[in-house]
Structure formats: C-alpha cells, structure tokens
C-alpha cells in the first residue's frame, strides 16, 4: 500500500497508521448498574506530502470488522491514499500560487530519521481479554454503592472502568514498519458530597496505567485497589464539606505543593509551552502560544527560566500514560530535557518542527486514534526528583500553605500565568500542618513561580492524566505527568 503512495507523481513522503482498539467498559452510579460493553474500533490515517512546493494532505476513516479482510482493506486504503494525495497536490499548488503574497511559505521539510522495523508487545500481568464484563460491572456497582454508604452527605457516586489492548501499525515510504501494542486499564471515580444548605464538594480522579487489570488491584501510583482509592476520595470529599473556604490573598505566600498537584502544574506551565508546534505559533488560534519562544532571535532557549534546583523532562521510556517506544511518525521516543537546573534546553517536537528549529527530532508526535493527524503531545512530562525529604520541606515553613492534589486549571494564552485549584489546602504554622480549607488553589505568573522554587522533594511520582485536549478537531489524549513535592511562592485563590 505504501508503495502505491510512493509511486504517485511528486509524492515526497507518505505514511499510514492502521490500528485496532479493543476495549471493555463498565459503569455504575449510586450502586446501580448503568452499562457495560466490549468492542473494537478499527481505523486508519494517511498523511501524504506531495506537490512541487510540497504540502500536506490527510485522510482518516474508521472501519468495520466486516471490512477487515485483505481485499477490502486494500481497496479502502488505496482510495484513502488517493484522497490524501489529491489534497496534498491541491494544497501545494495553492501554496505556490500564494508565495508572492506570502513570502514565508515554504515546502515542507522533514528532519531525517533512520527507518525502523520493530514489534512491541503489550505488557500486562492480567490479560484484559480474559476479564469478564459482568465482573467489571459488579465491581463498579459495588464500589459506587459503597461510596454512597460512606455518609448521608454523599449525594452522588459514579465509577467507571475500562481495560483493553490497542495495537497500531505504522508504515512509511522511507521504509519504516512498526507494530506497537499496549494495554490500557483505567478506573475513574466521581463523588459529590454536600451538607444541607452548603456548597457541594465535587471530586473526580483516576487510577490507570498502560498495563492490564492488575492496575485496579493495586499496581498503580496510589498502590491501592480501585475500591480503596474510591473510598479514600469519598472520605476526603465528605471531610471537605466541613472545612472552611480558603481565603484568597492579594500577595504571594509560601506554598508547598504535593506531587499530585504538581502533575497538573508541570502539565500546564512546562509541558504545553515546550511543545514545538505551540512555540512555532501553530496553536495561536486554539490553545495559544508559548512565552518561551517569540521568534528565532528572541526566545528563552539557554536562559534561566526557573530555579537552579529545578529540572523537568519528558520521557516516553518510563512507565506511565505517556509510555511508548516509537511516536506516530516512527521516530524513537527518548528522554527530552526540557529544563535543566533552571535553564530552558529544548522543546518536544515532530520531524517538520525539528527541521524548522534545526533540532534533532525527538519523537513526540501522537494521535488519540489512527484516523486523527498526529500532533506534538506530552509523553510522561515531569519535574525531576530532588533530594529533600517532603516532611522536612514542610517543617521549615513558618507560615505557609500545603497545596494537596490538583483539581481544575486555567492558564493564560502563552502559559505565562496560571490558576489551578486544589482538592485540599492546609495551613502550615511553624512547620506543622494545621487547618484544612476547601475551594481553594493558587495563582501566579509562571516564571515567578518557577524561579521561586527553593526546595524539591525526593518523593517523585507519575500520575495518569487521561484528558489533555489539543488540536482541531480536538483530540483528548492521555499523558503521564508528575514530579516530587515542591516549595515556592504564589497567591492563594478561594471561593468567590
């Protein structure tokens, strides 16, 4: 098939991704079963670079099981290649036509990679394919019922589980042929608790990994079964209904942020602004730009943007939601040092963006499903481990706050300012954790926060973030984020 693409006139490059996602799913609410399903989705995506002033064309489609025979696949893929090619050629022709009005238009160049041929198998202890749907549904029903039973103040309890295996084939006209499979298991709990006449407290959280059903039996970052994890989140949410609202501050205060909170922090103020496509302005109309890169002459590469104590990196080779061996351009994934001792060192990229920046391609192109176009995404993007004991970090704080577990973010357009709410905020007085507050969080200018980090813990963890939205059309991608405990300064935010 890929040879057909290579044979088309002025076709400079093409790749095909063909994949199948087999998933089992169950959910329940308040002790009542809601649904279960077992299904497979099959789809493909084709990218073609063609035309004298080469431009991209793309085509993606879902398939049914009835079409998954060699003859049908051959016919459908041929049509898809022809369509992507037609779009690329039309686009290239227009690009050439517009060159006089728009001088910076160029042919697409891809940074070179060595073709790879490899097979990567899914890793699991408990094969998702052997699990019974009824067992999954019974688990969800029981757990959601137990959550309701924790307290009369629990208004709503929802549990959802999924497990399965995904497999994707990648072929390119450069000779790459890669077959990657991975397991995926995730549990989600959502709970609402409310005292009569009070403001509801809402919590939702996830346990998950690219492994088998053992994830929900305890092989996860929380080291808890889904049942225990759900019970914990429910008790915490009930406890919070009795807490006072956090008062906001007008000036920064000392804050210690825990690894769970820092998962969302690194995601928003390090991960996203170090995506090369964002830096190169491709996301301006959607998710914004990056304050780290204005243009080739004016950017923060090589400059101090954070405390010398801080290092951050993105690494698909470590375990977590962002784990893989090859990205969706066939580039081997590798650790990318984004910030080293406070100095900005690099961006996550794809081959086209690497060529523009004159960087090495580092394998960060991902798509949620094969029929989507790959875009630059985080992998496992984290703050690096430090060497301080988190308890010591807290004990040194005379007057400050302990920010525990992330909730919801809001980040400014170039990621230069953030507000992130926390599940819990504790007062720290003379090194002791004292009072619990709710409905609070922190806000700061990103650079100020990063530069003011004065302690980095040794309790590194990676958490599953299943719902990073990016692209047009929107792709909701799972990524791994995390880090250790940090201490810095920020303003507190509260209930309005």
């Amino acid at each position, binding site marked *: 098939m890929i040879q057909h693409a290579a044979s088309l006139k002025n076709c400079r490059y093409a790749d095909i991704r063909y994949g199948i996602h087999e998933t089992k799913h169950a959910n329940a609410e308040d002790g*009542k*079963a809601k*649904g279960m*399903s077992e299904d497979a*989705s*099959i789809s493909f995506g084709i990218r073609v670079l063609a035309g004298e002033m080469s431009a*991209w*064309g793309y*085509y*993606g*489609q*879902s*398939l*049914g*099981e*009835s079409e998954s025979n060699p003859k049908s696949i051959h016919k459908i893929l041929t049509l898809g290649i022809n369509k992507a090619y037609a*779009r690329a050629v*039309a686009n290239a022709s*227009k*690009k050439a036509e*517009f060159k006089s009005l*728009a001088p*910076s*238009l*160029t042919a697409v160049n891809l940074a070179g990679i060595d073709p790879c041929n490899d097979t990567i198998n899914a890793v699991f202890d408990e094969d998702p394919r052997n699990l019974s749907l009824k067992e999954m*549904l019974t688990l969800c029903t029981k757990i959601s019922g137990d959550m309701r039973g924790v307290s009369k103040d629990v208004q*709503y309890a929802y549990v959802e589980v999924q497990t399965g295996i995904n497999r994707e084939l990648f072929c390119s006209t450069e000779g790459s042929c890669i077959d990657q499979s991975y397991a995926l298991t995730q549990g989600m709990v959502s709970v*609402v608790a*409310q005292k009569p006449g009070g403001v*509801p407290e809402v919590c939702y959280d996830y346990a998950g990994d690219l492994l088998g059903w053992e994830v929900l039996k305890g092989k996860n970052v929380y080291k808890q079964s889904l049942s225990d994890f759900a019970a914990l989140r429910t008790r915490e949410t009930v406890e919070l209904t009795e807490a006072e609202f956090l008062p906001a501050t007008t000036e920064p205060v000392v804050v210690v942020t825990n690894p769970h909170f820092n998962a969302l922090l690194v995601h928003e103020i390090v991960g996203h602004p170090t995506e090369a496509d964002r830096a*190169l*302005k*491709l*996301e*301006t*109309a*959607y*998710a*914004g730009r990056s*304050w780290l890169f*204005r243009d*080739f002459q004016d950017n923060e590469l090589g400059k101090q943007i954070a405390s010398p104590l801080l290092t951050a990196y993105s690494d698909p080779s470590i375990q977590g939601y962002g784990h893989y061996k090859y990205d969706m351009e066939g580039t081997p994934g590798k650790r990318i040092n984004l910030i080293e001792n406070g100095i900005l060192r690099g961006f996550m990229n794809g081959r086209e963006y690497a060529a523009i920046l004159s960087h090495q391609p580092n394998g960060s192109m991902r798509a949620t499903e094969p*029929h989507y176009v790959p875009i630059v995404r985080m992998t496992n993007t984290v703050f690096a481990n430090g060497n301080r004991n988190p308890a010591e970090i807290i004990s040194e704080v005379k007057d400050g706050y302990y920010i525990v577990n992330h909730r*919801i*973010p*809001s980040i*400014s*357009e170039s990621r*230069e300012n953030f*507000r992130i*709410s926390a599940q819990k905020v504790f007062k720290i007085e003379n090194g002791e954790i004292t009072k619990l507050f709710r*409905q*609070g969080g922190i*806000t700061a*200018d990103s*650079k100020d926060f990063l530069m003011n980090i004065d302690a980095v813990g040794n309790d590194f963890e990676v958490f599953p973030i299943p719902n990073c939205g990016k692209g*047009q*059309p929107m792709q909701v991608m799972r990524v791994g984020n995390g880090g250790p405990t940090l201490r810095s300064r920020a303003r507190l935010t509260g*209930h*309005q």
Partner: protein
Amino acid sequence: MIDLEALRNCVRNGIDFVKKQRDVIDAEIFASWNEHITVRLNYTTDIPCNGVHEPKSTQFSGIGLLVVFKAGKEIKVGFGSVSNNVTSKGVAEAFQKARKNKVYDPDFKSLPVPTGKPVLEDYHDPAVMGISDEAIVDLGWRGLKGSLTEYNQNHYNKSIIIGGDIAIIKERMAIVSTKGIDEFDESTILTTNITSMIEKESVKGTGWNTSTHLAGFDPEEAGCASAKSAIKTIGGERISSGTYNVVFGRQPVTDLFTNIVIPAVSLSSVNSSDTPFLGKLGKKIASESLNVYDDGAIKGAVGSKKISCEGIPTGRTDLIHNGFLVGFLANNYLSRKFENVFVSFPPRNGFRYHNGGRNHNIQPRICPTNIVVEGKDEAPSQSLLSKINNGIYIGRIWYTYPINGLAAGDFTSTVIADSYLVKGGKIDKPLKPNTVRINNNIMDVLNNIIAVSKDKKQTIVWGGEEVVLAPEIAVQGIKLDSIAGFIS
C-alpha cells in the same frame, strides 16, 4: 459516502428483525454516516510555514442498537454498535452485542415516544455534501487571503501570525423504534474561526463565520475581520486589578455560556448534583432582563437539526425567563428519570455528538443546539458602553473553566484579544492582551447584568458543540486581576 436511503432501509429492515427476537420488549435502531473535514491554517511571516497546514478529514458510519429485554420480572437494557456496516448482518451483530451487554438499570423507564412533527425539512446543502478536495483546500486559502490582504493594505508585513480553521461537517442519520419513531435527518455545517496577530505589537484579532450552505459561507470575510480587529487594538494598555463594569462581547458571552451556564442547566448536572442551580427551578437566578433558551429548529442556524438523535423533533426549550430558572436541557433517559406530577422536561436534546458528527457508537447524551441569549428590553450595541460609562469592553476570553467545580459557580478566564478600555461611555484605548484574568462567580455575573444588545451573531468557541446566538452583555462588578507583569 452512504446515502440516506441506505440508512433508512437499514433501520427499517433492522427493526423487523429485532422485534422477532426472543425476550425483546422494545428496540431502537440508529444508523448514521458522518464526515468531518478540517482545513487548518498557519501562516507566520517570520517562521517558515505552510499557510494551509493540513486539509484533513475523518469519516465514520455504523449502527447503534438499544434493546429492552424481558428478564424475569425485570427489564434489562443493552446497547450494541457496529461500525461501517449498515446491512442486516450489521444489525444482527449489533443485536448480539446488545444482548450480551444488557444490564438491569432501575432508572431506565422507556424508550422515547414520537412527539409532534419536525419543523425543519431539506435544510442541508447538496453542494457541501459533494464538495471536492480542491474546493475544500481553496476555502482555507481564501480565509488566509482575507487576513493577508488586510495586513498588506495597511502595510503590516512582519511579525504576522494567522491561524484557525475551516470546518465542514456532513451528517446523515436514520432512526426507527418499536415505539413508533421513524425519522431521518441530513445536515451540513460550515464554520470558520480565524485568529491573527501582529505579534511584536502584542495584538490579536478574531473573525468568524458560520453557515449551513456554501453560498453563504465567507472565510475571506472572517480572515479580514481578524486582521482589522488586531490592527485596531495596537497600543494597548494595562489596567490595575480591581472591580470593573464590563461589556462582554459575543465571543466571551459564548465562552461563558458554553463552559459554565449551559452545562449548569443540563439534567446531567442535576443528576450528578453538580450545578449551582440544584433545587432552584422556578426561582430567580439571574437579572430579570435575561432570557435564555435552546432552539434546535431555527432556520439557517448551524446548530439546528430536524430531529434529535433519539428521533424527537427539535424545538424551543426555555431555560431562563426574566431571570427565573424555568427549564433544563434533557434527553429521554434523564427526562423520564426526573419527571414527576409537578414538572417535566421535554427531551429535545438527546444527541450522539462525538468526533465531529452523530456517532452510532455512543448513546445519546444531553447536548445543546442553538442557545439564544436575549434581553427583556434589548438595546443597541453602542448604548451598552454608555450604560457602563467607565469600564472595559472584553472581546475575547480564553480557558474559561469552573475552577472550583460547576456547583460552586466560581470561574476564571483570561482576556486575550479584541478588548478596550471604556471611558465616558465610549471606547477609549485598547486593552493590552494577556494581561487580565477574570475571577468571578457565575451567579454574580448573571445577577449583575444591566443590559443586553439587540444584535446577535452565531458564535462558536473551540471545543464547543453548540452555537450561541450571542448578543453583547453589560455587567457590573466584574473582578479583574492584572497578570503576567514579567512579560512586559
């Protein structure tokens, strides 16, 4: 492409098959074909680029089958779906899945029943259905041309960024049930959202255009509008943190309604006890000058559909009337769960939107269509500035989220473009983009509305499914924080 007749035959023949199966009480068969085309724009004067970055599409079709089974003294409900197979074999396969997946759900009452007649007929554009690859690509370049031409004519040719997209959605569906529903629908949607910047001036402008027909679609105008707006806001100034009177432009109104207000008036939020409007039906929740309703049957609006994905004719559902909460958006499942002798919720909003189309793989969730925001006494747009006298005109916001959960009502957002300082009831100076964060509670915003403009425009936001027929709205007492001082 799968034609409507094939979809209708599939569901009609399919229901005959399913009705004969053992233990089947009721069934509903949904079949659809969808294509979502996106032409993404990216032009940067100072960075090598493609202009039209990638014309792309995804296509999907299939059958979704919901079956009610007799199970002893109970009933059980099962859902099964099959992709890319709208034949009798596909129906049989989906049925087997539904049988395997059936569960006892005490909250399930009944499948939808036919209600009324659809208003819309033949409202799609055959020209969009048959659009060629060349024409698709051309639309993208037209959008770019609109913006580039405006900048060139005004002698701006450095530090320019133009981004955004043209999106085309083609949808066909058919649905039949044992309850007597036998309906079909076909729709075409074209939207463009273009953002452009003169980056060294730190200005950004937005333009957008929507249509159901190719003839009425003008991406060039959207591109031009984005450039004009960016140029107008050169020379922006910062403001201090404080409380201000604000006129929210159409995009911010859409953003606030899409991300905060409309999710809060959905029965799904009532079901999960996560809305600030819980227990407030019939009570005053907003300024008496505010009316809000959802109407999926508005001719020419891009959120309009003939029928929902449950086969129910679309129509108007009042949500807020003279400041009082009078309704919630509903699908059949939650409408039946929550109806009682005192109140019912018309199930007009059960849709299967996912991946840019009406997706056979999922069961209907509650989705808005066209959200109309009206004032009791609407005023000309210009007069809203004099109503606030001194304050801020906010033209575009970003990352609007219910920061402490929807039920608490708190939200935050940043002001990123198209905004101005207002003095003495007139536009005074541009506001510097990305220097202001809004921190407020939606209840305060809704209750502090002082005026609503007469002029409305169909407006969409990134990631939003609905269209808001958005006016401009004047509100007092908005808390604005100055941010990102280090960037200056």
